[in-house]
């Protein structure tokens, strides 16, 4: 865990050092749907873009204050030169209104050596959409080939997918062990594990995870029966503030599983490797990524999925974490909340903002929620 904590404590220094150590170019992939495997197969290092911890300064000249934390933080980092170690960026601009601003800002103020705008369909009603998605991925692959001057073979893409699938299965194993041994890791540590996967080369991360899993399998933990199990849900694109996760646990609750992007959503469902690898990546994006407000799926309700996860884990309630000014989550949330009310599921919403967080207010909300589901 110490290596993982080191990586996540200063991702800027880690990724800059990584570039030097590996002597490879770094491609920043904006969360949440960029298929990193294609970047990896081009012998580049894909890194998922993160929200920094510093207040936004110069970035205010480029994005409005009513954009979400990661949007403002990323633009601020870029225009201040904090991301100079990145050689290129990939933005999937269909996932939210704010993501559409990035390519213009980057082109004008950062001038990256490589930039790709992905235009993956937000809905999947049939084959025409699948063809469109596939063409987008082909165009993404071609743009990387043009950038590196090297062709990406099917074999190299399959190999990258295998490495990524291995990472997914190892992370799934970490979650399985946590479910079986609640409390074996703090919720914050689990988030650090997922986040480090987004920053580290997957081969290196797989080695770390293999060691971590072995240690977790051997370790026994005291039963945590008196603690109330809760499932955090939401917090799209960015890390949930660690203080909130600590508060949840300090207040007598425990997190056996989650439905967070920097959590179970990142590694859910492997890519099916039968046949054409690009087809397989398109298939995962269209049909196998967990339901999310950035994708239009109308036959499954995100609330039902969250409730299932809660019940599968024998949890007592759901903690929605909503990033302030996150348009997809904000639009979906009323429907989500109605579903919770309809099914009689205890749920509380915590709002998170980049620079400001009233932890006392959050504490009162979480403590009241724990009292409510704990029968006080």
């Amino acid at each position: 865990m110490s290596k993982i904590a080191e990586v996540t404590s200063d991702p800027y220094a880690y990724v800059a050092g990584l570039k030097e150590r590996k002597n490879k170019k770094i491609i920043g992939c904006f969360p949440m749907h960029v298929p990193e495997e294609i970047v990896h197969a081009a012998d580049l290092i894909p890194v998922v873009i993160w929200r920094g911890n510093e207040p936004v300064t110069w970035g205010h000249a480029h994005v409005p204050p009513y954009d979400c934390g990661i949007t403002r933080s990323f633009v601020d980092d870029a225009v201040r030169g904090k991301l100079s170690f990145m050689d290129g960026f990939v933005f999937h601009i269909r996932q939210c209104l704010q993501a559409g601003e990035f390519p213009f800002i980057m082109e004008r103020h950062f001038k990256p050596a490589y930039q790709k705008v992905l235009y993956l369909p937000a809905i999947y009603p049939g084959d025409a959409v699948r063809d469109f998605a596939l063409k987008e991925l082909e165009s993404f692959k071609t743009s990387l080939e043009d950038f590196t001057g090297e062709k990406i073979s099917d074999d190299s893409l399959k190999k990258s997918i295998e490495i990524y699938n291995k990472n997914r299965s190892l992370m799934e194993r970490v979650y399985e062990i946590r479910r079986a041994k609640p409390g074996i890791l703090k919720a914050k540590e689990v988030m650090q594990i997922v986040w480090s996967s987004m920053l580290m080369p997957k081969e290196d991360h797989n080695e770390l995870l293999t060691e971590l899993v072995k240690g977790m399998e051997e370790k026994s933990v005291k039963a945590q029966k008196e603690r109330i199990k809760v499932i955090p849900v939401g917090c799209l694109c960015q890390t949930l503030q660690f203080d909130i996760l600590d508060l949840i646990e300090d207040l007598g609750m425990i997190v056996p599983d989650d439905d967070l992007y920097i959590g179970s959503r990142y590694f859910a469902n492997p890519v099916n490797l039968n046949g054409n690898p690009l087809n397989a990546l398109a298939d995962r994006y269209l049909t196998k990524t967990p339901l999310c407000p950035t994708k239009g799926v109308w036959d499954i309700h995100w609330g039902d999925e969250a409730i299932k996860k809660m019940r599968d884990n024998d949890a007592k309630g759901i903690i929605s974490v909503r990033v302030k000014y996150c348009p997809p989550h904000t639009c979906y949330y009323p429907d989500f909340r109605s579903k919770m009310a309809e099914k009689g599921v205890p749920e509380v919403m915590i709002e998170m903002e980049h620079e400001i967080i009233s932890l006392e207010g959050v504490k009162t909300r979480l403590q009241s929620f724990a009292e409510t589901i704990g029968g006080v």
Partner: protein
Amino acid sequence: MAVVVGVDVGSLCTKTVILDGDGKILSYDIMRSGHYYKGAAKESIENALKSAGLKKGDISYTLGTGYGRGAVAEADAEVTEITCHARGAARLFPEVHTVIDIGGQDSKVIGIGENSRVVNFVMNDKCAAGTGRFLEVMALALSVDISEMGDLFFASKEKVDVSSMCTVFAESEVISLFARGHKKADIAAGIAHAIARRIMGMVGQVGLREKVVMSGGVAKNAGVVRAIEERIETSLLVPYEPQIVGAFGAAIIASERMSTTIG
């Protein structure tokens, strides 16, 4: 004589309630919290003990609640003010299903289900808009004592809109309204209606279920109470001393925990 104590350390005021073994209020105390919550809790408990003719050794269980609940050194446990307001309101008005609590620095709407338990709640905590502190600042801007704000509401003759709910901007707006020649009473009524609009938004999130109790210091302002009643189109039940409902609830929970321990 074994008694239990509930202490509600709020951002503006600290309240203490002492209950006897039958759940009867023996005494209560309300004082300003100041900047030293630990000292305020201690002093408030001492005041309430003195009023009841009791001494520290008579206390069998103390429960802290409120914004400064962690600062009650005498407390055996702490519970949030949301749970305590629900429990206190339900004891006073068993038919209650919704509590509107407007305290010094935050406001809450609490949905109550079976056995006086909280089923849903919302609270504003980002700023002091629409809270007791907001009213204090508005009273200063109007150059009246806060206790006069309620009466001013009923003396209003003309409708004046106070659109901003930011304490700082609303203060500027009040000054502008004065400059335009509006009367104090009309502005005071506009302020009460602005608070009611904000509360209505929170009530909408929890869902209005009658009966509705209003607690917290702002419930002493009859103008705000009336403005909320008009907005939610139902009567509010206001306890004789709305400011101690949280401390009362804390004392009830203390009493339950004592029974469990003894049982």
